[in-house]
């Protein structure tokens, strides 16, 4: 049985997100991030004996972990690919913690990254590349706009069921932008207001441009190891206290509910493993492909009652200065979504905060953080609870 707090995140490395990868491949970006994480951990490359990777942006998935290991000239004793969409990054941390805790490997490198290609993204082929056969056969003929329309359906239903307003959703993007303004690595750092968000173009009504994540290029690496008190490392250790996962559907059309997400069960399982509750959490790092994703996450994790997320975000300062700091790096809404590394940005930011290394955006209380990874259209959920020391 997994023991809380016996594994830790010992190294992180993240590339500054960019719109143009400058001729680099997913492998190149991943290797750069890996080098940063290994250096951050105070390790040598040979210390890495486990490897978990998320899929590349390019076409060939075949033997992908093996392709990555060969590029990095690693000889792992355990490796695998994790494909849970946006939950892949958090999911790879949970899987690394299990393997390390079980003694299968000592230091597991979790790597994610990708290259954004405008030529591919906004085409029929770009859309079908992220669709299931069932979606291609029975959904595509009606013109769904990929994830945009899926989250649009959720937002519309939440508004109808609970009276959530566009202003309340916009507040999430605004607070996260306030965080991004003190993050030198954010992609978008210009101050925005609620009227700015609502004045940005409607893409899929009721979602506006500034409520929708911007795809970009980047990579992120995290090393999971067994906690060894007193080991020489430049940073305070960040422990993995618990995790929980939940899966109920792939397409939102066939989900049990549009407004109740599997995050509820995933977070309950994580809380149970970590033996803590929502009220013990100091900061959250919530997957934010859209504003509505954050609002439903806050409700389902239990920071407010179901349906009261709109009022909660309206009344709560979600910035690094606030009572529930949320996505203190600015989230993916301000940092961009570097393919599968977008989800890892929530892990790396939580680690920076728990270490006390978040600079100008450092939160005051930093004992316990909750990270959520969300994939598909509220489909795949992996919740992590990370602790300081």
């Amino acid at each position, binding site marked *: 049985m997994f023991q809380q707090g016996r594994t830790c995140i010992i190294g992180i490395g993240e590339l500054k997100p960019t719109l143009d990868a400058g001729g680099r491949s997913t492998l190149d970006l991943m290797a750069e991030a890996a080098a940063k994480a290994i250096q951050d951990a105070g390790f040598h490359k040979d210390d890495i004996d486990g490897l978990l990777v998320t899929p590349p942006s390019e076409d060939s998935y075949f033997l992908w972990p093996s392709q990555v290991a060969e590029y990095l000239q690693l000889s792992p004793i355990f490796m695998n690919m994790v494909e849970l969409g946006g939950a892949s990054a958090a999911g790879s941390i949970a899987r690394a913690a299990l393997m390390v805790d079980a003694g299968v490997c000592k230091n597991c490198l979790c790597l994610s990254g990708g290259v954004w290609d405008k030529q591919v993204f906004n085409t029929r082929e770009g859309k079908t590349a992220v669709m299931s056969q069932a979606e291609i056969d029975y959904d595509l003929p009606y013109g769904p*706009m990929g994830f945009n*329309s899926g989250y649009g*359906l959720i937002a519309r239903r939440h508004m109808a069921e609970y009276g959530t307003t566009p202003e309340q959703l916009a507040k999430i993007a605004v607070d996260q932008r306030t965080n991004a303004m003190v993050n030198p690595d954010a992609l978008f750092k210009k101050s925005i207001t609620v009227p700015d968000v609502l004045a940005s173009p409607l893409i899929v009504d009721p979602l506006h441009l500034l409520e929708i994540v911007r795809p970009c290029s980047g990579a992120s690496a995290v090393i999971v190891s067994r906690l060894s008190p007193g080991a020489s490392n430049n940073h305070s250790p960040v422990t993995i206290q618990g995790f929980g996962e939940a899966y109920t559907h792939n397409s*939102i059309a066939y989900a049990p509910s*549009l407004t109740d997400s599997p995050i509820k069960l995933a977070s309950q399982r994580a809380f149970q493993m970590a033996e803590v509750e929502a009220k013990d959490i100091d900061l959250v790092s919530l997957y934010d492909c859209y504003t509505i994703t954050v609002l439903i996450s806050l409700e389902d994790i239990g920071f407010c009652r179901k349906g009261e997320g709109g009022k909660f975000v309206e009344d709560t300062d979600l910035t690094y200065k606030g009572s529930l700091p949320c996505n203190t790096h600015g989230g993916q809404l301000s940092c961009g979504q570097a393919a599968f590394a977008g989800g890892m940005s929530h892990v790396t930011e939580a680690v920076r905060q728990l270490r006390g290394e978040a600079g100008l955006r450092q939160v005051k209380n930093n004992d316990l953080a909750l990270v959520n990874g969300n994939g598909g259209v509220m489909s795949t959920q992996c919740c992590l609870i990370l602790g300081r020391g």
Partner: protein
Amino acid sequence: MTDYTKTYWQYISSGKLCLQFCAACQKYIFYPRGLCPHCLQPGLEWKEATGQGVVHSYTIVHVSALPDFQDDTPYIYALIDLAEGVRMPSNLIDCPLDQVRINLPVELVFIERKGKTLPVFKPVSTA
């Protein structure tokens, strides 16, 4: 293409929306499959749907990257709860954008789009 996908679209081409039905579970299923997802047994029957439903949720697409739809924006993409107890993605047509709402009663109608017959929905006429 699988046999059941072919069958589904052949029925559509002949102006019928047919759904698979599992006699053992006494349940309709959507989308079509080789096995019933509830009991994992084969032998699903095809039954014609009544074509009655309500809007479960909808979104008005203003920006579409799909070439077939770029000239059609804004259009209503919706999830329809059919009377048979299943949910399907579709479009809502003949409905002013300010009239669409959740739980709006709708009925089946067929359209041709790019040479393909499609089952879509329109508001139930109140006349």
